[in-house]
């Protein structure tokens, strides 16, 4: 008997063939004693196994077996958030934009410092020159190194004020 015929015979017994193919195999079995003998063995094995799945009991107590499963399940569940840290979680969404702003501020200060070192020692020095675009306006600027103050005041041309005598602090006045 060919291997294909053996498999077809088995498929017939398992009810896996189409009606037409099943009729063909049934006819062949009726004529072939070898096919009938093989079919009998296959049927016998099938019948012996049916419903006789070996039975076994878990070799552990109910509690011990379950405790392993329970631990594994509990490790899957995400932990409840700590209520004491609730405010932190509420603010967490603002942390990213705030930290970005802080970074920008640090960079700006750093750049200002850097430009002060490369250009002049004092970055405020860059602001001491004030240019008036009008003939009718007078502007004054005042800078104090010790107070770290820089002031600009603007007045009409006809209200020119008396020049204040320079002191030790007022050593960087520009009048235009």
């Amino acid at each position: 008997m060919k291997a294909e015929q053996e498999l077809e015979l088995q498929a017939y017994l398992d009810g896996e063939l189409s009606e037409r193919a099943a009729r063909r195999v049934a006819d062949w079995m009726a004529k072939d004693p070898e096919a009938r003998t093989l079919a009998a063995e296959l049927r016998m094995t099938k019948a012996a196994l049916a419903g006789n799945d070996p039975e076994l009991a878990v070799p552990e107590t109910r509690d011990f077996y379950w405790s392993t499963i329970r631990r594994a399940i509990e490790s899957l569940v995400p932990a409840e958030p700590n209520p004491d840290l609730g405010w932190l979680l509420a603010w967490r969404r603002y942390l990213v934009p705030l930290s970005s702003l802080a970074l920008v501020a640090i960079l700006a200060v750093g750049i200002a410092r850097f430009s002060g070192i490369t250009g002049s020692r004092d970055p405020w020095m860059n602001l001491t020159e004030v240019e008036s675009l009008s003939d009718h306006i007078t502007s004054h600027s005042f800078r104090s190194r010790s107070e770290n103050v820089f002031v600009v005041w603007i007045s009409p041309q006809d209200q020119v004020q008396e020049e204040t005598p320079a002191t030790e602090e007022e050593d960087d006045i520009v009048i235009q």
Partner: protein
Amino acid sequence: MALQQNKSALNDEKLVRSAQRGDMDAFEELVARHRDKIYARAFSMMRSEDEALDVSQEAWVKGWQRLKQFQGESSFVTWMTRIVINLCLDQLRKQKRQKAESIEQLAEDSGGVERQMPVVTTNPTEGLERRELRARIDRALNQLSYEHRTVLILHEFEELEYKEIAKRMQCSIGTVMSRLFYARRRMANLLAGFKRDELSP
């Protein structure tokens, strides 16, 4: 204790519904009720007590995770059995990849040995008590290759069709048919051999 007694009075369907709502006590009752069957299926495939314990417990954890997907098309225990079978197949495939294919294994898959076996004409299980028959079947399963054992379990015990077995074992229907044929032939001869041993002085 009172809670457990209360749960044990409920049927599977009600326990599943409670477990789907997160009631772990209900799930524990389901585990207690069906753990032997799930473990036995794992053992029949893995043939190792430790591996069967690990895989069966993993199956219950997966069952809990996927519980919301269970719609009741089959019984709960059938659904759980499918989960443990899939885990066993994954595990066995991993183990097989680690082993080098032997010539004997290849010959067994293609029926090199089984084709030479005589056809068993006398029923070797006739007159056996069910307990003894089950013990002999278990002994015979132990002597089959994992491919032959698995295909027999899926077809004869789980009553899956060729197509479904092929899908689960990730092979062709033709391979399922040939494995099943040679597994049955080998099983018949093993059972006949046990009978001969019993009769011999």
